[in-house]
């Protein structure tokens, strides 16, 4: 580069406008979600007293079990900036504790920004709700995180279902598969099952971003990722897109190596793809296994008319071979 470092700060004005815009969008999103929660609370705790007041920010304590592990610092900074500019929007949801303290039910992200923006007081709504509903609300709010990856989302939804159905996560999973099978085979569920299915339906409607069917087919399989990859995702060490590539490496040793390298050297997605491609399976698969693999991938390829035509020709040849 030339004698001095070039000034590259030409786009600050439009950058600021863009940031402000996305902060406003986020606020609108949060407000819409707040509305959604209000409706939920309205239907579930209609008989309870609601109380909207302003309290010192120091009197709010976070539920240690519900505290989120990781927040995108950039998103958080944007929200903080927006709060400084527009003030605090909406109300945090709290439960009353002894000694004039309040336990946070929903609004962790906004609380963090309010602290960062050095607000001394925040508007809250005191909800008179039991432990159970508090957890459901917290989980629901968690699911609205902007930086939630599909695995975290899947786990969150399972936790939420297990709460609502009062059963273990493993039982929820098997219930979901039963629901899918019965739908596909058009079988009649038992009374107990149909009650559970109605609850599941309701939960997915409330979440509103994925249908129960695609949750079962697209999301549940993600939890079968190798444990080390789930751990790395949990700790925010790698991005979800990279994780899916690494998870496809069958052999444990090279997979671990690739995972370590990806984290240590922050490999790009295309680098990860390339490395994963280079890893050859240690055992040569049998002809039969290879056939199975090809056949498994075939239906998708057949959608392409050109490939379908070629496949048809090959099929004829195979038929001849078998008949010989």
């Amino acid at each position, binding site marked *: *580069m*030339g004698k001095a470092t*070039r000034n*590259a700060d*030409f*786009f*600050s*004005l*439009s*950058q600021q*406008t*863009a940031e402000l*815009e996305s902060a406003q969008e986020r606020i609108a999103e949060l407000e819409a979600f707040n509305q959604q929660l209000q409706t939920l609370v309205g239907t579930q705790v209609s008989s309870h007293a609601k109380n909207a007041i302003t309290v010192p920010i120091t009197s709010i304590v976070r539920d240690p079990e519900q505290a989120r592990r990781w927040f995108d610092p950039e998103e958080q900074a944007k929200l903080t900036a927006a709060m400084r500019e527009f003030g605090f929007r909406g109300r945090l949801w709290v439960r009353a504790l002894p000694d004039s303290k309040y336990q946070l039910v929903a609004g962790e992200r906004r609380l963090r920004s309010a602290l960062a923006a050095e607000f001394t007081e925040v508007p809250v709504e005191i909800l008179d709700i039991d432990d159970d509903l508090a957890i459901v609300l917290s989980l629901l709010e968690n699911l609205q995180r902007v930086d939630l990856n599909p695995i975290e989302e899947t786990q969150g939804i399972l936790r939420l279902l297990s709460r609502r159905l009062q059963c273990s996560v493993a039982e929820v999973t098997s219930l979901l598969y039963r629901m899918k099978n019965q739908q596909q085979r058009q079988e009649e569920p038992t009374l107990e099952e149909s009650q559970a299915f109605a609850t599941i339906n309701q939960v997915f409607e409330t979440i509103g971003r994925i249908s129960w069917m695609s949750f079962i087919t697209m999301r549940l399989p993600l939890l079968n990722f190798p444990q080390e990859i789930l751990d790395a995702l949990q700790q925010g060490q790698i991005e979800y897109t990279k994780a899916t590539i690494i998870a496809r490496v069958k052999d444990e040793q090279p997979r671990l190596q690739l995972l370590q390298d990806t984290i240590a050297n922050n490999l790009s997605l295309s680098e990860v793809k390339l490395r994963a491609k280079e890893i050859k399976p240690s055992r040569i698969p049998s002809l039969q296994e290879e056939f199975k693999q090809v056949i498994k991938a075939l239906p998708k390829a057949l959608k392409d*008319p*050109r490939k*379908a*035509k070629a496949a048809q020709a090959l099929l004829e040849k195979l038929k001849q071979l078998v008949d010989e």
Partner: protein
Amino acid sequence: MAKPAPIATKTKQIVLWIGANSGGVSKTTLAIHIAYEMACHGLDVAILDLDTNVSMAQFSGLSKNPPWEETISYVLSDEFSGNWPLVTPSWGNPNGKVEICRGGPVMVQTGLELALKKRREYILQDRLTDFPLPHQLVILDCPATLGSLNDVALAVSTHLLIPVELTPKSLSGCDALLTWYRLSCKEMRLNPPPQILGVVPARYNQEESIQRDYLKLLPQMLGGQNIHCYPFIRYSREFINASERGIPLPLHRKSHKACQDFLPICNDLIASLRDN
């Protein structure tokens, strides 16, 4: 057996706004060469010239002094009844066709008169709704001043392409343009707002160190806003020579390297048309 999907169907049309906030950054050159390249791929392209200068007519070899009824000013007037005054330049039939609706000095008056019209920002959108053009790609060549004619273009466009010269003046102008874009989309309640296809460094001269430096920095400058940065369009005096003859560069110097510089943009447009 089903044929592969055609590149585009009548239901999908891209309206590409080519604009800048500083003059002489190759807006018209881009419009002509993208149009020509797309027509070589078999697509039909209409160029609507909203600019007050006559570079479109000059670069395409058309008369610079058309009667008013043959300009876009007439299309935007109350007298327009649906017969688009499109003309085909001599080079406009490589495979698909390129048709041009000229602007020029008449647009100064049109810009002023817009102020009195109801739905003024949406006037071209209304025209294209009432009297649709069959072309898969409509290119809007816009003036370098952010004003009423650019509002009109923004309201109707689906995609934005922003040429910049790698100079402080042009880059600062681009910043102002992007700010204008964001605020205008919101004020005009464009939903969905037109998508920014990308910023393309034009008239790139490798000999100048400031341009080389800015070229390296540009993706990073735009990255914060998630704006794509295209490979450069190189500077060549052959562009000027081609414009003197009123033909695109590939017809003037077939194997000139700069002919390839438009391909990444055209490939994205084709992919986008195919998406539907």
